[in-house]
């Protein structure tokens, strides 16, 4: 008899605890806009070899593939120079001198620096800039009239991150 009362009391206690724990879910809104999330820091660990670097760069700038013959010649010449930054900077300068690189004008860059910075990061680094990177470049480009699209592209194409994927 005692046992039945105890069991009944325990049942009532557990049931009421269970029911009491259920609560209607509340929707809390903090007033923050929805945003797409992307990785803003590079996580590139593999170095492009000479052929990969030249081929990717050429396609990036001209929006078409480099010919095998041109690739072979370029690869050999770059390999013959000890400082790869020097070699790459000269290669780029040579490309820019052809006048057929597909890139925005300086006026377009200055008309919307934010968009230019984001697009440049996406074009060269295949990622979005961090807020710090964006702020730095935006401020530097807007403050210095000497900055041209050509110089920004050269900086990106010869940077360490562009050597990696």
């Amino acid at each position: 008899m005692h046992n039945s009362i105890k069991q009944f009391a325990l049942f009532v206690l557990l049931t009421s605890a269970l029911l009491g724990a259920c609560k209607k879910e509340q929707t809390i809104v903090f007033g923050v806009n929805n945003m797409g999330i992307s990785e803003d820091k590079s996580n590139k660990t593999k170095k492009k070899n000479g052929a990969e670097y030249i081929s990717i760069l050429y396609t990036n700038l001209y929006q078409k593939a480099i010919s095998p013959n041109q690739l072979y010649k370029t690869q050999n010449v770059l390999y013959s120079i000890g400082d790869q930054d020097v070699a790459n900077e000269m290669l780029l300068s040579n490309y820019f001198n052809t006048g057929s690189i597909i890139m925005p004008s300086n006026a377009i860059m200055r008309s919307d620096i934010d968009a230019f910075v984001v697009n440049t990061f996406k074009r060269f680094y295949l990622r979005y800039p961090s807020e710090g990177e964006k702020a730095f470049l935006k401020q530097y480009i807007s403050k210095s009239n000497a900055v041209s699209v050509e110089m920004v592209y050269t900086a990106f194409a010869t940077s360490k991150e562009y050597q990696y994927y």
Partner: protein
Amino acid sequence: MNRKKFIQKSSLALGGSIVAPYLLPSGRLFAKTGSVKADHVVLVMFAGGVRQQESILGRYLEDSQGVLGAAGNIMPNLFEGNAPTKKIVYGTSIAGLPNGSEPIPKLLTQSMENSGVLFPELRALSAGHYVGLSTLLTGNTGTAQGLRVRPRYPTIFEYLRKHAGFKATDTWFIGNGIGNSTPLLNSSNHPDYGLQYGANMFAAPVTFSASGREVLGNSKTYTRADLEPMYYIKNFLDNSFSLSKDQIASVSNTDEERTQIKDFIKSVFAKQQAGQLAMPPVLDNGDAINVMYAAEVLREFKPKILAVNISSVDGCHSNFTGYLQSLHRADHITGWLWQHIQNNIPEMSGNTIMIVAPECGRNEKPNPILDQNDWLAFDHSDKNALRVWSLMLGKGVYRQRVGSEAKPIGRLTDIAPTIADIFGVLDPVMQSGLLDPLAKSQFLQL
């Protein structure tokens, strides 16, 4: 502050300043340990595999092909001795006369042997090219050195940049091509040294070839002001993507040095077009072209050290006549380079030491390949291929012959410490513990 505290603090400060290492203006951690013997060194890596018999011993065809009475010296700028008088094939060709019958006139008034220190019988540490070249530059025997990889032990460029505080454009390696492992000789992959201390490098016959002109020659001439924003942005981007030491894949020049190198490349292309490059009187092989560009680098950068590699004599594997011609031309261009420094680069004239040494010798016995004159060719794999020589001349170096065929003195690993000695950093270089334990500065063997 009372007197006791003052004495305590000043003693501590004095002790600390003595014990703690400090950065010198040059960026060095430690002061040089010896006196500087010259401000510039040019190392001619007289490579390709040079037999003692046709070079320093002046035997021409007598030993190699058994042609009696055909001994003689075909390297008049380097060594003493009369030229051969029989079967002359090593010179240039003149219409109507047999091929190679016109020897190239001697350029130097006095042979290098007569002007400097000759080690006539040095021991090479390998009968192979790449290990031999590595040995010349590292002072290490190169045991277990693989092909198509950087030297395992630091090169003299890295020692000098680290211990003597030289900047990147003070140190140059001029390779004669991009084949095999040649372009990797400007730096080792040693964890304590490596590319961050490596030398600048051109494989000049490729950099300044028609392809080079096509790929690089049309580049724009930017002013330093144009480039400033580019370097500013690049340096910002690079700071966000720092590489570990083993990920560094290139020599590290400053922005100013990079600009100077780019301007130099463009100036060489311009000189090519205008026919204004200074060149040896006879410029008919790749070695001569390489030395011509080495001279341009010397003129522009006045480097502390420049090593230039030549190797046409390696044709000896299948063409003995070609080998003789290449040997004669290697002598010619080495003499020309020395003369060019003395006459055309005032900053280096009288203040430079040149060292010349092959990386390995060649076999005593021939292989069965006959050339157009029915002469046998030679490979490099036997004991004779470990016999080489070295020459050193220039500032403060006086005529001396050290050792002989009967009494060999010195090893090829002596070259790197000799260069360290010239720049006053022999002690730290030897104390690195990374050189052949038997290597010794040649100055200590005089």
